[in-house]
Every structure is written in C-alpha cells, then in structure tokens.
C-alpha cells in the first residue's frame, strides 16, 4: 500500500467517526484494530484527524467576519460590534475603565468572586467556567449565544465544542475563540494571558492593528494592545499555574517576593517583604491558597525569619 492509499483509508475513518451519528462500539473496535495493524496507520490517522480539526478554524473565522458567510443572527453581530468598541475603550482607558456602561442584553448575567473565593459555573451545554479569586465576568448564553466578558481576574474554561455556536471570551481588548478547548484566561491591566491546555483556540486583538494567534496545547499567549506573543510551556508548568483549581498554590524555586504576591491575590491579610535579601530566598512546596499561616510558619522554620503585624499587614524580615 502506498502512503497515499493509507491516507485515503485514514480519511475515511476520520470522516466516518466524525459524522456518523450511529458510530458504535463495533465501529470503534474495527477502527482500533486498523490503527494497531502498523504504526503507519496510526500516524496517518493522527494526520488526517488534525487536518479535519483544522478545517473547523473556518467556522471560527465566520463568527467575526460577517461578509465571509451568511450572517443569520443580526442581534449577535450588533452585540459583537458593541463589545469590540467597548474593548477598545478599555485599551485606551486602562484597567480602571474596564466596565461596560450598560449590559448589551437583558439576558446577560454577571458573576463575581471575592478575594480568596473559587466558584465554578456549569453551563447548560456541558461547558464549565471556573472563576479564580477576585474575578468578575458577564455571560450571555441565551438563544444559542455563547459569549463571556471577563472584566477582571482569572478563569479556566472547559468548553464543549459546537461549530455552529463558537464560544467567545472577551477580555481587555482581545477575543478568544474556542475550537473545542480547555484554556485559562488571566487579565492584568492592559494585557491578557491565555494558556491552552487542550484543543485549539484563537486569540484576536481589536486594537488599531489587528493581530491574531492560533494556539495549540501548551501554548501561552500574552496579548497587549499592540502585540501577541506566544511561548510554549511544559505540562508540569501549566499544571502548577492551574493548581488554584484545587485551592492550592504550587511553588518551585519561587522567590519569596513572588510567593507573597501570589498569596496576596487570595487573601485580605497581606504579606509584605521589605528586605530585598529576604525577597530573593526561594521556596519549594504546595500550600493551600488561603492558608497564610502555613507560609508564615515555613518562613519562620525554614529560613529563621520573623513575622510581625504592622498596620494590619504581616511584615516578614530577618
């Protein structure tokens, strides 16, 4: 069999599996058997499946290019435009102005977490949004719409893919379009960070010059008003960044200054480190995000540091 013939067979399997609503256990067994015959089969299948998945990108393209295809849903496109205008305003005004004067639709709902809180939103379509500490988002999920505006903070999205209804997240002048994905979005003044754990997603900027980046698993995009840069992170690193979902903070040779900053995101009781020599000490370990005492005790016992209460804050020093 030539490589081209194997490709054709692999494509048949992929198309059958993706479009046959009656795909059965027996079909899967037959596919598994074919894949196991020789590695060439599996490699061809991976390649064909990737090709199939990549054509879904076209579906996402349509969602923000009204001219590219039919645009049956007029109210949606108006909402999109309004969101884009507001998002540009955010870039100009900075994080403080990260607020929409009025909700675009009455069907929209706002959700928020206070400092230290962790909340999971379960959507009717099976998707989930986990909100980290001090986060505000607004969701419009009625009438087939799947749009979320992340006003501030950080959230982890696990999205059930639906080519006809792309899931879109707006945050500080950027738009993240999922293509069947798990991803993390973290906002900071005038920039967002998007980490893709599974599947595929696209990040677009609405700034004066348009940017776009396609993300693959392990990619972390940092998007500002003027640029998007993409770097790769290993799975263990991504897992650490997502440890808050279990209520944990994970440190691996992390400077005490950064440790304090992380704890301060989750707790009203703030930690202050004034001495630069102390700030440079590094810590390894996993801590409950809201257990300030645990980190203070570690600082005491491991480094022999002192912790004192000053003006309602905890100051760590030698």
């Amino acid at each position: 069999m030539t490589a081209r013939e194997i490709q054709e067979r692999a494509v048949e399997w992929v198309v059958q599996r993706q479009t046959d609503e009656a795909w059965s256990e027996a079909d899967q067994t037959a596919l598994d058997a074919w894949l196991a015959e020789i590695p060439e089969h599996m490699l061809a299948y991976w390649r064909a499946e990737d090709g199939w998945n990549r054509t879904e990108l076209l579906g996402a393209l349509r969602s923000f290019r009204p001219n590219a295809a039919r645009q049956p849903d007029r109210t949606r496109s108006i909402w999109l435009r309004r969101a884009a205008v507001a998002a540009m305003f955010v870039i100009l005004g900075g994080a403080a102005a990260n607020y929409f004067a009025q909700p675009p639709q009455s069907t929209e709902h706002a959700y928020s977490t206070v400092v230290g809180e962790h909340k999971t939103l379960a959507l009717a379509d099976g998707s989930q949004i986990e909100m980290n500490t001090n986060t505000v988002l607004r969701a419009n999920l009625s009438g087939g719409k799947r749009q979320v505006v992340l006003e501030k903070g950080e959230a982890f999205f696990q999205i059930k893919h639906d080519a006809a209804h792309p899931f879109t997240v707006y945050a500080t002048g950027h738009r993240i379009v999922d293509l069947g994905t798990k991803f993390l979005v973290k906002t900071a003044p005038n920039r967002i960070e998007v980490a893709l754990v599974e599947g595929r997603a696209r990040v677009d900027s609405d700034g004066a010059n348009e940017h776009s980046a396609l993300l693959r698993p392990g990619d972390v995009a940092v998007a500002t008003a003027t640029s998007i840069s993409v770097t790769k992170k290993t799975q263990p690193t991504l897992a650490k960044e997502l440890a808050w979902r279990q209520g944990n903070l994970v440190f691996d040779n992390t400077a005490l200054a950064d440790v304090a900053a992380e704890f301060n995101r989750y707790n009203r009781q703030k930690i202050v480190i004034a001495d630069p020599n102390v700030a440079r000490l590094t810590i390894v370990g996993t801590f409950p995000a809201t257990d300030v005492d645990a980190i203070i005790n570690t600082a005491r016992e491991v480094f022999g540091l002192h912790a004192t209460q000053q003006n309602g804050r905890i100051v760590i020093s030698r």
Partner: protein
Amino acid sequence: MVDTPETSRERDDPRRQGAAAGMADLKTWFVSEVLPLEQALMQYLQSNWRRAEDLADMRQDIYLRLYEAAKERIPQPTRPFLFTIARNILIDRYRRERIVPIDGVPDLETIAVPTQDPGPDRRAIARDELRHLQAALDRLPPRCREAIVLRQVEGLSRKEIALRMAISEKTVNRHLCDAMNLLLDMQRNAGEAP
C-alpha cells in the same frame, strides 16, 4: 504567576529521565510539534528529490522513523531531529536507486539540514495557516467544498447536508473524504495542488 526555572522543569519532565512516552503524549507531540513542520519538510524534500510521486511515501517513512525514535524518548527540539531523519532518508533513497544526484545535490553528505532557522514566529504561522486553509478550500471542486463548508462551518449533520444538497448520505461521505484528501495534499504544501 509562578515562574519555573529551567532546571526544575528538566527535573520534573519524565521524558528527560528516559521514561518511555505514553501514547497520548506521543500524539500530542506529533500533532502540535511535528505536523506544523510538514510544509517546511515537504519543501525540503521537493528541493532534493525530483520525482514528485515519491514524496508522500518519503514523508511516511520519515514520520515512521521519527515515531519509532520518539517511542523511546520524545526528541526535543523536534525540528533538527526531523530534518536529520529526512536527510538520512534522502541518502538511503539515492543509494537504493543508485542515483548520482546532479541537480542541486552535489554530494550526499553535504545535503543541508535547515536546523538553525527557527522559522517565522508563531503568529505569522497562525496567520499563514488560515490563509492557506482558505486558499486550499477555494481550490476544491464545488460539491466537495459545499459539503465540507456545510459540515465544518455551518455545523450541519450528515443527514442535513444530504437534504440540503439533495444527494445521499453516502455521497456526502464521498465528498467529505475527497475534500479532506485534497486539503491534506494542499494545506501544508504552500497551497499548491499536488
């Protein structure tokens, strides 16, 4: 965000300890790191091998050899490893066919391996990918294009596509397969038809 120094990343990564990679890891790596290099790989093969009809088989041989190596340990970085294998496959072919390469390949041992060039930045690749995809889609036969657009862009089921196009589901399947085969041939081939 917690930053991880390079040293601890190496320590944590089981691949660096020589542990055999799991199938899921292999697939993730193959799809996210190898397949995006396919266009560059095919250009490299094209410029060093004149018979176009051999290229798909050569690509398959290269992926197979790469896969066998990755089962032991996933190569990092991927690019130079892939192109070293490609070069070895080219050399094997030249030897097997007893060809003395004339055009552009003066000496087997000096076939250049493009390892240093990290390629355009990811953003450019992503933009290119969408452009290529659209260009490739435009080249499909109309019925194939209609079927794949109804499925992947409009999100219709196979039954709905059959009704819309007034053909049988089996024919829908045929159009989808033809479209996918052509797209696979074109997508990473600089938008050229095979």
